């Protein structure tokens, strides 16, 4: 059996009141995994703990078998994080930004520069590679951030609401990019409020509510859990979360 891309066990986090309460989650390698949940369910907190931005109160996090709490740098080296607000520098150009990110991940220039060019061309940013990001639309900023996330060839890509604020064309190109990443063997975890995206894109879906994993599986497995074979993901989601 292959090593899971992400394994979370007994995760707990409290911000004055409990937010994550003993969460267990396992995401297999090479999957596109959608993490769904109502507002305040703890999706973002869980993912921020997975990438080392928030310290858990208890529990373990492993990324491809690497203990992310005791060996954070090794785990970070193979992980990319893309939050809903792109982590960009307004006054840097996309090319300069990618150069900086490559430096942080210590990718040799002779390897990073061609990869950056490939990403910029693929994401249709090549023509604006020398324009500062401050004038970019939300969608273009998201694409620059996506290029930054991919420049170091991560094995696990974690995205928090990657489609927020994007127009239809831009959302399509981001979805295509995520699918392509999975086709190349990478693992992608996304949180989204757009259930149609999860329904169409995800190999497996996890539903989180009240800081714990409520249900997990393929769409068919979730439908079966909800007791309705014909239901949409939206119906299934509402039935499952209303039970909690």
């Amino acid at each position, binding site marked *: 059996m292959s090593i899971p891309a992400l394994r979370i066990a007994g995760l707990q986090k409290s911000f004055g009141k409990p937010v994550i309460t003993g969460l267990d989650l396992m995401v297999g390698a090479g999957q596109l995994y959608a993490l769904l949940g109502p507002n305040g369910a703890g999706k973002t907190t869980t993912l921020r703990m997975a990438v080392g931005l928030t310290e858990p109160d208890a529990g373990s996090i492993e990324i491809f078998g690497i203990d992310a709490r005791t060996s954070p740098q090794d785990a970070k080296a193979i992980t990319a*994080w893309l939050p809903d607000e792109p982590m960009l520098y307004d*006054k840097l150009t996309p090319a*300069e930004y990618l150069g900086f*990110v490559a430096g942080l991940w*210590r990718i040799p220039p002779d390897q990073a520069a061609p990869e950056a060019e490939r990403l910029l061309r693929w994401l249709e940013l090549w023509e604006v590679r020398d*324009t500062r990001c*401050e004038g970019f639309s939300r969608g273009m900023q998201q694409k620059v951030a996506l290029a930054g996330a991919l420049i170091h060839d991560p094995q696990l890509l974690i995205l928090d609401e990657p489609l927020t604020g994007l127009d239809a064309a831009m959302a399509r190109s981001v979805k295509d990019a995520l699918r392509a990443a999975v086709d190349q063997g990478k693992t992608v975890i996304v949180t989204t409020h757009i259930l149609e995206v999860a329904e169409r894109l995800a190999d497996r879906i996890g539903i989180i509510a009240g800081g714990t994993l409520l249900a997990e599986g393929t769409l068919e497995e979730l439908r079966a859990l909800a007791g309705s074979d014909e239901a949409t993901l939206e119906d299934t989601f509402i039935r499952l979360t209303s039970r909690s």
Partner: protein
Amino acid sequence: MIGWAMRRLPPGSLAWLTLHELRGTTRAAGGGKTRWIVGALVLLGYTGLGVFFGTVLADEPFRPGPLAWLVVLIAAILLFTFMTTQALLASQRTLYEAGDLDLLFSAPLDPRTIVSAKLLGIAGGVMLTFSIFLLPILLPVALLGHPELLGALALLVALACTAACLGLGVTLLLARTVGPRAARTLGQILAALTGASVFLATQILNQHDDRRESGTMLLFEALRSRGYGSGGLSGLPGRAAFGDPLAMTLLLGGALALFALAAWGMRHAFLHSYRAGGARPAANRTAKGGIARHFHRGLFTSIFVKELRLLLRDPALIFQVLLRIVYLAPILLLAFRDGRSLPMAPTLAFTSVVIAGQLVSSLAWLAASAEDAPDLLKVAPVAKDDLDFAKLLAAMALAAPLGVLLPIGIALETIPGALVTLVFTAGAGGVVGYLEVAHAQPAPRSTFQRRQKGGGIVRNLIEFVIALLLGLAAGVVVYFL
């Protein structure tokens, strides 16, 4: 209290909108409950001091004359420059950062009311700031025996209204002439220069004088010898502050007339700037050639290049940093004054260490705290210590061109002295820079025009004392070499 007053006013009226602006200004001051409690206690203590002065001076007769009027004139000039600085920055925030203009201009309100409320909000904010410093002393003294001093309130209102008009007027003029993007940078530079103008003027006067008197005294004498402050227009502030009804009426009436005229006249310019401000600030640059030049080997190079780029692309911030150095100029002037009594090399060594310390401190603060993407650095596989060290080195490297200037000057007199100065300069930069980096509080760079440097007064003071001590040590060593 503002909310209480707003509930009793007709919504959408000028007074209602102005109170809304003031509510925003007071809330922007921020701070938690503890800060408000500490602030209230300090204010209470300060008012107690005012009551003490008021009691002591209650039976002392005031006989204001040309000398007192001149003192008030100089104080008013100083106050006006600071108020204009604040008004310039507040105007910029109103136009480019507040984010409420879309809402206000989409509401069924007369644009003149909105512009007037914004202008009143700027004036009110300015007045509020300076009232906190002046009124706790002024009011008790006035109420306990010298009611004529209430005229100073009229002066304060007049100065604040005029500064608000000037601040908004200059901001709009800049936006109209150089465009919204450059206007922001130029406005910030202008604000910094205005704030420092009196200081710079006194330093220049001081430099050309052989009598070793302070710059302010020289300004005082220069104005007195020309008859300023005793009569005519220049006498108005002094007379108004001491309760002359005619002077008060003229000053207040003039300022309010100017204010009304500005609110009426700036309406179109304000709307134009607001609409232009919404435009995307960056023009597309034609992309040319490959991108390999942007990729570097090693963490330090990547951090250094990034920090250098961000700094060079933010002239207003560079200016702010350099202005801190300008305030240290008097130390340097000691070494170059005619008939100086201090030896050149040790003085330069001392100056080099202190200035470099301040410069590295500011640059390290920018590198560590003016961080648009702190989460990017946290998710990167880099140890925090390595990152902090790289940022510190980047700050020191950026300061190096200025840091070596004075040691080169010392080298003309003593080469060992220059080497010692270099070591102390680097040491001071390293220590104070480390303090900044280790206590970084990352926030977007765009918010830095209104952020206080570093972690407040205590850390800045500690850093300055460290630089001073190392500077003194350098001076002493160079002296004995």
